[in-house]
């Protein structure tokens, strides 16, 4: 058991990676064996992730050196810099790991019946496991080049999943746009890694952070990294690929691709807080992030108001909610150099942003799954042609109500809790920020009222008389995310104290992040 807790970080990455390549071999034994295998692997990954969370909360930052004689041996004797690829799991990594593992599990369970009848299911589950492994890899790693490699794996498997239903032309188009945007972003990340290696001869995040001198080249690398990683997470002005990619994604993969975008946002946080920290001009970068957040919020929700395709409407809300997270992180970043402001509202702002990330992964994932369930049952995504499904699809309707209340920020749902934290803290930086955020929240509520009225209320339409409720595994998949949403709604303070504030403190405490690796093994 002790060995399992020491090796848990690398097992959480290596087990789904190896299982992804075992899936075609297992699939030869039959479809049921493969389905059981995939769900068993994802349950094991969930168990490993919770082991890692417990270890990080009790014992501090976990360090794992690949290939050394002992796991914590970051700097071997007679060396002064770290060698080998080192995984460094702090509060932020553990927090994001919960999101990745849970969303992947619910998406896979949902896909068990949603993908029935499609061809090439072996490859579907291979790509799903690869996407999970790459998300956990980005969240747990402490090495820059390892981050780049997992970022590329995430892009390739995400694009292949988005374009999976090749018989629809919009799926292929969305996948193509995603792969072009991802490749260019990853190349810019690689360019920055080259800049760091050329100056400091180091690839470890903690080591580069220790040696960082914030020269002109470092500023260029910062600009490239923020631009590339915010593009990958779907912030304005590079948000145009998000609706085209998320809308045609098959079965239960929409929440998992959304979790992968949130992982890229987490990687941006790692770069900005742990790699650069207070050495950069925090006010400039912070205000840049705040402006990107405001634009994302506003443009996302106004574009969503005119959509008639249910999933496309929900993906514009993805962009809008991303804006809230960026607003929270930007406020925390802008005051990073001022310890009084950090204690007053900076820490709250970052915690609000992180809590909003967690809530969004659950309720937005749930809403995307309900949109996909309507498509599965009715064969159309057009809101103008739907109507009156509230009577036949009771569970889907209930899950939709939970998700819609949460995303609009209605008390007592978890969306209200995280949005309140963001309103309070951004008001203290500049009152206009909170006002814009409130207006966007009202428009979000308007948008989802329209969807509810169009899809679920009203008289039953004659062409949908024979529609049956969705199968059991789809209900279970949606139920996992709905249960998470309700749990966070009922016990927000418990969740904040257990996982969100440790993640916030891990981000703010750059000295400890460096010290665990550099200041002795």
């Amino acid at each position, binding site marked *: 058991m002790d060995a399992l807790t020491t090796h848990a970080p690398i097992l959480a990455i290596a087990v789904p990676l190896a299982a992804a390549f075992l899936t075609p071999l297992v699939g030869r034994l039959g479809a049921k064996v493969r389905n059981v295998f995939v769900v068993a692997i994802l349950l094991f990954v969930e168990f490993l992730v919770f082991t890692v969370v417990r270890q990080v909360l009790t014992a501090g930052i976990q360090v794992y050196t690949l290939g050394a004689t002992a796991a914590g041996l970051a700097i071997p004797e007679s060396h002064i810099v770290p060698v080998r690829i080192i995984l460094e799991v702090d509060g932020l990594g553990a927090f994001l790991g919960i999101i990745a593992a849970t969303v992947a599990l619910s998406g896979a369970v949902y896909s068990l019946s949603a993908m029935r009848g499609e061809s090439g299911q072996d490859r579907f589950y291979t790509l799903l496991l690869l996407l999970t492994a790459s998300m956990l890899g980005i969240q747990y790693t402490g090495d820059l080049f390892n981050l780049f490699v997992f970022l590329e794996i995430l892009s390739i498997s995400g694009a292949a999943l988005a374009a999976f239903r090749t018989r629809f032309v919009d799926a292929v*188009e969305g996948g193509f746009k995603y792969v072009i945007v991802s490749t260019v972003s990853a190349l810019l990340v690689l360019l920055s890694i*080259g800049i760091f290696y*050329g100056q400091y001869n180091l690839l470890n995040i903690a080591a580069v952070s220790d040696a960082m001198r914030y020269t002109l080249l470092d500023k260029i690398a910062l600009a490239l990294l923020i631009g590339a990683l915010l593009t990958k997470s779907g912030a304005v002005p590079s948000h145009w690929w998000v609706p085209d990619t998320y809308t045609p994604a098959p079965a239960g993969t929409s929440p998992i691709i959304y979790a992968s975008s949130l992982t890229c946002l987490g990687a941006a946080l790692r770069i900005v807080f742990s790699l650069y920290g207070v050495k950069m001009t925090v006010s400039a970068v912070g205000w840049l992030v705040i402006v990107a957040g405001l634009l994302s919020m506003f443009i996302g929700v106004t574009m969503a108001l005119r959509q008639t395709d249910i999933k496309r409407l929900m993906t514009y809300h993805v962009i809008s909610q991303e804006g809230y997270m960026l607003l929270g992180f930007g406020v925390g970043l802008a005051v990073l150099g001022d310890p009084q402001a950090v204690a007053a509202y900076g820490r709250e702002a970052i915690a609000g942003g992180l809590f909003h990330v967690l809530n969004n992964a659950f309720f937005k994932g749930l809403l995307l799954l309900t949109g996909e369930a309507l498509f599965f049952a009715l064969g159309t995504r057009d809101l103008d042609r739907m109507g009156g499904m509230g009577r036949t699809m009771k569970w889907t309707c209930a899950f939709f109500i939970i998700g819609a209340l949460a995303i609009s920020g209605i008390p007592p749902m978890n969306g209200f809790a995280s949005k309140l934290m963001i309103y309070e803290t951004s008001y203290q930086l500049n009152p206009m920020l909170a006002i814009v955020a409130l207006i966007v929240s009202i428009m979000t509520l308007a948008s989802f009222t329209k969807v509810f009225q169009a899809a679920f209320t009203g008289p039953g339409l004659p062409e949908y008389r024979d529609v049956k409720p969705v199968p059991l595994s789809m209900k279970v998949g949606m139920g996992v995310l709905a249960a998470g949403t309700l749990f966070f709604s009922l016990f927000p303070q418990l969740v904040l104290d257990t996982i969100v504030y440790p993640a916030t403190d891990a981000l703010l405490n750059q000295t400890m992040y460096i010290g665990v690796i550099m200041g002795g093994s």
Partner: protein
Amino acid sequence: MTSLVVNAPFVAVAALACVGLYIMVTQRDLIKIVMGVTILESAVNLFLVSLGYRNEGAAPGFTHASGTHMVLPVPQALTLTSIVIGVATTALMLTLVILIYRHTGETDAEKSRRVKG
């Protein structure tokens, strides 16, 4: 004069990156856009390899080298990984271009657009 010779690879990196970005932004044919991405990849790979050069250094695996000075081997490993990833993404992009052509009969980016708003 020596500074121009030593910096020549980096000038080539800048030129290749500009050419790649220009192609991606201005060309309308999908395959030409993929070519632009490939040129940008080559620029970044060239940048990584030329970071490792040390003056009068020999190749790391060379048995009969004259001195003990060698170029850095780590950027060579990073570049190799990047080339492999580039192969995989180019294969995926070209497959998607083939599929778009089969659906719409066009490889022009404007004419083969089916999703708007």
